[in-house]
């Protein structure tokens, strides 16, 4: 079953002579439970694509269906609900709320939706991400890797249809990066979590089941990794 369907997606920034075509007529689908890596040169439009799928940026033309829902037609309030419930976004800079502690940051999307927190699932995720004992700390009191794991927990807690990670490890050293990747991979395997991940690092891309390569706003490569078992 396809969870993401993109048809003729185009994104143009700016006007007139400053115009930049970040995405140029994209067509592709992503299956439920897949783990996709998007690679490509800097400025090729990876982040833009992810942001549009995540509902945080607008598209110029085209259609995007997530879980059979056309997000290009969503209204403000519906879009907020979509962001809250359907997607989890992880950024390179962890984007945590500085005044809330770890726990509060993780549960924020759910409490915004007025949903009750599944305490068992919360415990499971936090122990899985090894942050149980860092929950009372403010973001400034955490290391980069810990902050990123909090951000992942925040994205996972609402059981989103897709998890979007934009260079989630770009800021971390290789050990920490691999560790984060390991968590992503396990959540994909353990919970069947659909993941779309943007990365520069070909080494990390190999964790994925499918690699989409972009150049100048177009897809120039799309390959499935047959045997993606990698030994750390």
């Amino acid at each position: 079953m396809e969870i993401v369907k993109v048809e003729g997606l185009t994104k143009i920034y700016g006007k007139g002579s400053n115009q930049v075509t970040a995405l140029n007529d994209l067509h592709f689908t992503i299956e439920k439970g897949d783990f996709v890596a998007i690679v490509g040169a800097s400025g090729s439009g990876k982040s833009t694509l992810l942001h549009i799928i995540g509902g945080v940026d607008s598209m110029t033309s085209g259609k995007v269906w997530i879980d059979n829902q056309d997000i290009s037609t969503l209204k403000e309030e519906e879009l907020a609900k979509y962001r809250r419930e359907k997607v989890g976004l992880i950024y390179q800079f962890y984007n945590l709320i500085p005044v809330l502690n770890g726990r509060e940051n993780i549960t924020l999307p759910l409490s915004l939706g007025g949903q009750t927190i599944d305490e068992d699932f919360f415990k499971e995720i936090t122990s899985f991400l090894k942050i149980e004992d860092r929950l009372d700390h403010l973001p400034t009191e955490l290391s980069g890797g810990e902050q990123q794991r909090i951000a992942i927990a925040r994205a996972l807690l609402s059981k989103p249809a897709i998890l979007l990670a934009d260079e989630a490890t770009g800021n971390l050293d290789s050990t920490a990066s691999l560790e984060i990747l390991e968590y992503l991979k396990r959540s994909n395997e353990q919970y069947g979590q659909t993941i779309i991940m943007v990365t520069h690092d070909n080494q990390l891309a190999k964790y994925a089941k499918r690699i989409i390569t972009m150049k100048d706003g177009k897809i120039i490569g799309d390959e499935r990794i047959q045997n993606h078992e990698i030994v750390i």
Partner: protein
Amino acid sequence: MKSLYKTTLQLLLKNKKRTMATILGVLLSSVLLFSMGFIFSTTRDNSLCDVWKEKGYQHAIFENIQESDMDQFEEKNLSWIVKIKDLSVTTDGWKKVTLSMIDQKGKSLFRLSEGTFPKKETEIMISSHYAEEKNWKRNDQVTIQNQSYQVVGIYNESKIRYYQEGWDASQESIYTGWDSSVDSFDVYVRYKKPTHAFFYIDDTAVGLKKKIDVHVYDGIRINENLLKLEGSFADSKKTMALYEILFVSLFILSFVSYFIIYNSFLLSFQERKKLIGILQSIGASKKQLFHAVYLEIAIIGIIGMGLGFFLSLGIVKVGILFEQELLESIGYRDIQLSFYPQFMFLSFAFLLFTLILSALSPARRAFKARPIENIRLNQEVKLKKEKGKSNKIIKKVFGEEGILAYKNMKRNKKKYRMALISLCTSMILWIGLGTIITQLVDEVEKLEETPGYNISLLLPYEPIQSNLVKKVTNLEEVKDAIVYSTANVTLQTTNESGYPQFLTIKSMDDKSYNAYLKKLGLKEEKAVFVNLEAKRKEDQIVGLQKKFDKEEDIHFEFCSYTHGENHQQKIQGCYYEVNNLYVTEELPEIEESWSDWTKVSKETLLVSERQYREILSAKATYEDKAEEEMYYNKEIYLITDGYKKLDNEIKTIGKESSLYEEVILPNYLNINMTLYNTHMLILGIKFILYGVLGLVALTATTNIINTVNTNRELQRREFAILRSVGLSIKKFKKMTLIETLFLGLKSWLWGLPISLGIVFFLRSIFLQSEKGTFRFPTIYFLTSMIAILLIMILTTIYSVKKIKKENIIETIRNDNI
């Protein structure tokens, strides 16, 4: 939802500086508005109370009215009308006790603590104080002026003649019930709209045939001071000017308040853009974000306005204490603090409205943006091609740091625009209100201008004149003396209402008269027609409601009238004619200033003493009276170095006369002694005005500091990055100072023309009124220009010092909240 509220609260708590700056913005505006409200209400209420005590609460008293005249008061939009007849005035110890008859309509003007309002002429009502003093009880039978009365009521508040329980009055009023057989009485009226009072009074006066001339009535006592305080002047232009000034002040105040608050919130939202983006990206809906903003408005509003209210209350209370201290020596009573509920309501409503508007518009803009735009802190940085020329100049003058500062400003236009508006606001506030206050101070100071003399004495009766004038002017202490004689004569002509016109004729002693003629450049003796009203209009001379083509055409004929039926007056015959007049606006030396009764009226004929005698004896002959019976005044003006000694000497001479208490003393004026009281009162008023100015200065200064600080705060991260790539603190300081200088100079560029516009508008208002003057507020322009730069530079130096201590990496790392 709860956690979003929590986030809001924690955000406010954590980012103390930002929150305090926002609260400070609200606080400043509230203090400004509330203290103006307090000062205005307190001043007005206390002045109203003073007038009420001195003159009563009615707008006018019409004297000697008959029952048949009462229809003249119908349909005059009256608030109330009461008939009163004073029966007797006696002294009881040091108190003046007035016994008056009052009709039943007066009932609503009293509050009775006991008993009833008197209905019969044998019943009386007394004040609670007098009842206690006299130990008179209700139903007691008492005797006043050999008449027996029954006390039926005791009042503890009176609107007609001031009385409030607890007030130990020097005057007491006792009221008896109305006796309908009384033939004439006084009518006290109060109109519903004070601004219409003059119109209705005039209307009634014409109907009653009590109008003599424009604003001149016979037997009508208008409570002008009360009407002035209620915003109504006989001269409607003055009323307009008053409202215009009030309007301009309010406009500036609200304009400033709005911008201070708006700026605070705008900066606060700019700082939080990223946070808003994160919240949006994890699914916070617009509604939820708005709810969080409402919470913030509520918290900041309650704290800011609450503190502002109490702070202004404190400021005004302290001000009142000082004021009381200041006025104590002239026996000023307690000043009561008051605040009109309308003012309070309006101020709160305005502040709340401003708060909501200021918070919602940047919020709406931030919430409308795509989450990713907010997270990336996208700013509408527009890169224009830089002008190579200005770059070169800046580089030459300020060096590399100058270029950096210049680019910084060019690219962060929005941030700087807000700072600019804020600085201009301070400037406009200072210059605008400064102008108004100086103008008012000038106006008040005019009261203190001393005339060219020290002592004046008005002698209304012939029997005491000749003797006294000689004695007084010959006193040793007298350095110089001027003696006027004044009389009124009736002219052959009548005014528009059909009454004969009066003309005041005056003569001076020969020495002063010759000096005056010399001042006018006249070689020979000539009657001088002093015409202050309008000497020439369209090449014609206007006088006594007539137009003349040439001076030679003007001549006056003095006549006698007989009183006929129905107030009609008929010319009996004329006895004197003056031709060959000289028309001027110039006054004799001593007339040029001060006290109303020393001034010649708008149209006065100044003649030599010889001619004056001639006129009066002609009149006496014609009317077949002795010359002594001609009613005229003598005015003596004395110049001296020893006013205290002269004061004693004159009083000693005066006491020889039997009319000392009744006539001489009431018409005696020792300016140096009177001036002390006026001086203290003026000091009191100036204290209030300068207090307001101080408040304005404080607001303007705090606003500038606040602006500079927030701007610095917003750039902290940028600066840390600059420093991390090797900008030395010294260079950094230079760059910041150059930036500050640019900003300051730019605020001149905008603030000065706008202020100039406001000043010219104010000028047109102040010059509207008669004899209006206007002083260009150069000092406020200069001080604001210098102060803006100075305060900005000092604040910058201080903030750089603090940044120096900061850890560079910490600052970069700390996400912008």
